[in-house]
C-alpha cells in the first residue's frame, strides 16, 4: 500500500460559528482518483476550497489537512502559495468565470509556470503555455493563446482551465464539478482529458460531483457526503451497487430518472431518510474511516 498523498483528518469548516462541514476524514493516494459525491449544498465545494486553503473570507477550517505529510491548515500564506499550482491544483466548476476576462489566454496559462519559476523567461513561458494548450487538445494553440476568454466556447474554456491546472504537474488535482457546466456532448471528452492528464503525471485526484454516472466513470473510490458529513465510503463499485446508507440509496434512486414509487410519483430523497440529518454540532458521525477506505495506519483508523 503506497503512502497517502492527501490525508484529511477531522476537517471542519464553519461560517461564523455555524458549521458547514464536520469532522471529515479521508485520504487520497498518489495516482488514485477519489470521488466525493453529494447534493448541492452538502459541503463538497467548501471542502475542496478548504483543501486548497482558498476559503472565502468569513469561513474557517479546523482539523488537519496534510499533503505529502505537510500540514496545510494554518500554514503561512507564502508556503501555501508555493504549493498551489505546483503540488496541488484545482479545476473549477464554472469555466465562464474562472478565467480573467481582461487577460489573453496564453499569459493566464503561462502565469502558473512563471509563478513557480518553471520557465526562464517570457518567451519560453509563452511556448510552454502554447504546448499546454495543445496538450489539452485545443485547436490552433498559438492563435488561441492570443485570444481573450470571451472568444472561446465553454468547453474550450474548461480545457484552458484544465491546462492551467495541469501545467504545473501537480501531485494532486482537485476537480470541483468540472463538467457540470458543460454540454453533455463535451462532458465525456473533458473527463477523458482529465483522466489522461492524471495518468500521465501519476497524480492523485479528488473528484467532486453530484453526478453519480460521472463519478462511476472516473473514480476508483468514492465518498458520499450529506449535510456536511461523509456518510458512506468505499470502492466505487461497492458503494454504487450495494449502498449501505439510506442517503446513498436515495441518491442512487434519484439518479435513476425513470424510477417511480408505488403511487407513480418520482422518488424524492425524503423517502430514503429517517428524518432530518443530525446537526453537525452533535458528536459521533455514523461513519468512521477504515483501512479498507485507504486509511494509512498513521492516519489513525480507530
Amino acid at each position, binding site marked *: 500500500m503506497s503512502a497517502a498523498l492527501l490525508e484529511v483528518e477531522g476537517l471542519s469548516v464553519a*461560517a*461564523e460559528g455555524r458549521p458547514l462541514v464536520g469532522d471529515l476524514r479521508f485520504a487520497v493516494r498518489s495516482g488514485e482518483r477519489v470521488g466525493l459525491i453529494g447534493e448541492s449544498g452538502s459541503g463538497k465545494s467548501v471542502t475542496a476550497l478548504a483543501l486548497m486553503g482558498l476559503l*472565502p473570507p*468569513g469561513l474557517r477550517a479546523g482539523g488537519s489537512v496534510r499533503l505529502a505529510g505537510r500540514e496545510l491548515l494554518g500554514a503561512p500564506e507564502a508556503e501555501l502559495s508555493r504549493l498551489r499550482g505546483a503540488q496541488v491544483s484545482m479545476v473549477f466548476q464554472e469555466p465562464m468565470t474562472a478565467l480573467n476576462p481582461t487577460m489573453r489566454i496564453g499569459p493566464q496559462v503561462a502565469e502558473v509556470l512563471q509563478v513557480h519559476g518553471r520557465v526562464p523567461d517570457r518567451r519560453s513561458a509563452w511556448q510552454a503555455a502554447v504546448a499546454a494548450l495543445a496538450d489539452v487538445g485545443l485547436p490552433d494553440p498559438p492563435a488561441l493563446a492570443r485570444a481573450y476568454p470571451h472568444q472561446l466556447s465553454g468547453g474550450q474554456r474548461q480545457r484552458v482551465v484544465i491546462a492551467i491546472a495541469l501545467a504545473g504537474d501537480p501531485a494532486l488535482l482537485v476537480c470541483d464539478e468540472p463538467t457540470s457546466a458543460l454540454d453533455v456532448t463535451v462532458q465525456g471528452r473533458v473527463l477523458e482529458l482529465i483522466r489522461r492528464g492524471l495518468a500521465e503525471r501519476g497524480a492523485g485526484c479528488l473528484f467532486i460531483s453530484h453526478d453519480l454516472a460521472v463519478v462511476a466513470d472516473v473514480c476508483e473510490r468514492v465518498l458520499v457526503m450529506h449535510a456536511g458529513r461523509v456518510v458512506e465510503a468505499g470502492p466505487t463499485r461497492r458503494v454504487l451497487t450495494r449502498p449501505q446508507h439510506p442517503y446513498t440509496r436515495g441518491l442512487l434512486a434519484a439518479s435513476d430518472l425513470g424510477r417511480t414509487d408505488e403511487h407513480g410519483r418520482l422518488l424524492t430523497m425524503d423517502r430514503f431518510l429517517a428524518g432530518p440529518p443530525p446537526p453537525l454540532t452533535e458528536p459521533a458521525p455514523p461513519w468512521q474511516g477504515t483501512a479498507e477506505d485507504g486509511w494509512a495506519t498513521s492516519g489513525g483508523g480507530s
Partner: protein
Amino acid sequence: MSGRGSRRGGAAVLVGGALVALVVLMALLSFLWTPHDPTLVDARVRLQGPSPAYWLGTDRFGRDLVSQLMVGARTTVYVGLVAVGIAALVGVPLGVLAAMAPRWLGELLMRANDLLLAFPALLLAVMLAAVLGAGTGVAMVAIGVSTVPSFARVVRAGSLQVLRSDFVLAARAAGRRPWGVAVRHVLPNVAGLVIVQASVAFAIAVLAEAALSFLGFGTPPPTPSWGRMLQESQSLLFTDPRLAVVPGVAVAAAVLGFNLLGDGLRDRLDPRLEARR
C-alpha cells in the same frame, strides 16, 4: 454571507437614520420654537461664548447660533427636498421611459441625459444666477437638474433588469399594456433604488448648497443657512473657531447621515438590483 451584509447595512441605516432624523427634527422644531430669533441682531451680545442663554454662543451680529443652526437645518432640508424632488420627478420617468421605449428612443433619451451631465450644479447655478440673480430657488433648481442624470441612469438600469425578469415577461405574455407593466411591476421594483439614490442625492445637495452659499450663489442673507454660516465664520477662523466648527460639523453630520442611510439601504436591497455605476 447575506446575513452579515444586512446586519452591517443595519448599522449604517441606524447611524445614518439617526443623523438624518436629528437634522429633520431640528428643522421641524424650528417652525415651532427656537431659543431666540435667529436673525435678531443684538450689538450687546456680539461674539459671546456658550452660556445658559446662548447654548452655542452668538456670532458677530449677536445672533444666537443654536437658533441659526435650527433654521439652517430647515434650509438644508428644504433645498434638499426640492432638489431631490426635481431630480426624481424628471429622472425616474426618464429612466423608465428610456428602458421601455424602442431601442433608438431609449438611446436618444440616455444621450440627452448624458448631455445634462455636462452641466454640473455649480455651473448651472452660476449660469442661472447670472440670469435670474442668486437665491435659494436658483440653487435648488440647479442642484435638482444636475442630479437628474444619476436618477435616470440608476432607474433605467434597474428597469431593464426588471423588464427582463420572468414575472414581467409573464405579465407581458398575459397581454398587459406597457404602461400597466411600468406602473405595476417596474416602478415598485425600482422604488428601492430610487430611495437609495434620493438619499445619496440629498447628501450631494447639502454639499452643493454649502458650496454655492460659499460662493454667494446660494441662500441669500439673512436667511440662516449652514453654508453661509461657514462662509461668514471664515474671517474669524483664528479668533473664534467655534463659529466655523458649529456649521461645519452640522454639514458633515448631515452629509454623513444621508450617505450612510443610502449605503445601508443599498446593502439591504436585493443585490441583483444593485446598479452598477
